[in-house]
């Protein structure tokens, strides 16, 4: 069992969380202007990173808040968590934070 550090509630059991996919995928500025292929690209295509991946999580049975996490997809280790809207921590900062 993994402990995930919620930025608001602290360390909690992973069963309290849900995964929300890749973070920082901006909604298209003018969706009407997109071709079907571009729209599909936005909707369905995500990076499949091996290594550090920026992703969204929600503490669904706790404070119900969304937050971003920097996680190593090889080891499952959470390198950092940061609130929605906050700056993306660099890998060096993440190492230091040790979340």
């Amino acid at each position, binding site marked *: 069992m993994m402990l995930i550090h919620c930025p608001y509630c602290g360390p909690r*059991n992973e069963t309290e969380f849900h995964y929300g996919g890749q973070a920082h995928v901006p909604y298209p500025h003018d969706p009407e202007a997109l071709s079907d292929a571009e729209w599909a690209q936005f909707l369905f295509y995500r990076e499949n990173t091996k290594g550090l991946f920026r992703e969204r999580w929600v503490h669904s049975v706790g*404070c119900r808040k969304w937050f971003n996490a920097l996680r190593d997809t090889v080891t499952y280790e959470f390198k950092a968590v940061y609130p929605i809207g906050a700056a993306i921590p660099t890998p060096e900062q993440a190492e230091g934070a040790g979340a």
Partner: protein
Amino acid sequence: MAETTADPIRFSAGPAQLRRSPLEHLAPALATTEHSLGVALREIPFTIQIGLRAAPGSAAHEALAEATGVGLPMRTSEVAGDPGSVAVLWLGPDEFLLIGPEDGQPLLKDLRRGLGDLPGQVVDLSANRTIIAVEGEQARDLLEKGVPVDLHPRSFGPGQAVTTLLGPVPVLLWQTGEQSYRVLPRASFADYTARWLLDAAREHHR
């Protein structure tokens, strides 16, 4: 002439007599648990519960903190006030649950007046959750069978509350004393939660 079928006595008694708490049907079963055997379960029905929302640091937050009379909790697992009268539980950075006595209706008006037109929320959620009191020497032992949060005194104690899971059920868990806890499932989960607790308590009541 059509006869009325409603029982005139019960009908005239008013809504307070007609209401049924979510665990009324399990009261006899809950009553078989005993303090002397390690853990006692009982329902605390009909408390007033008010959902409050306001962003920390905002004027709405200040107004609500004043209107509750006990302030608002500032961080996770904090509880303002006390379980005997009015308490406010932390649900999220901008979300709180006020729990008060059955006759706490005036508080709802005070809170609404306090918030006024400021961006925030005051909602009567009294029927949303019921309260199951879990008390006794074995109370922590019993809850630890289904709660993933660390309930050891080094990290959780009286006057703290968290939203978490009990088995598969999302609940609010509130420790009110050294050996007393309150479990708040939503009304539709109350029957399952109470039966789960009764089953978990069986080993103490052989």
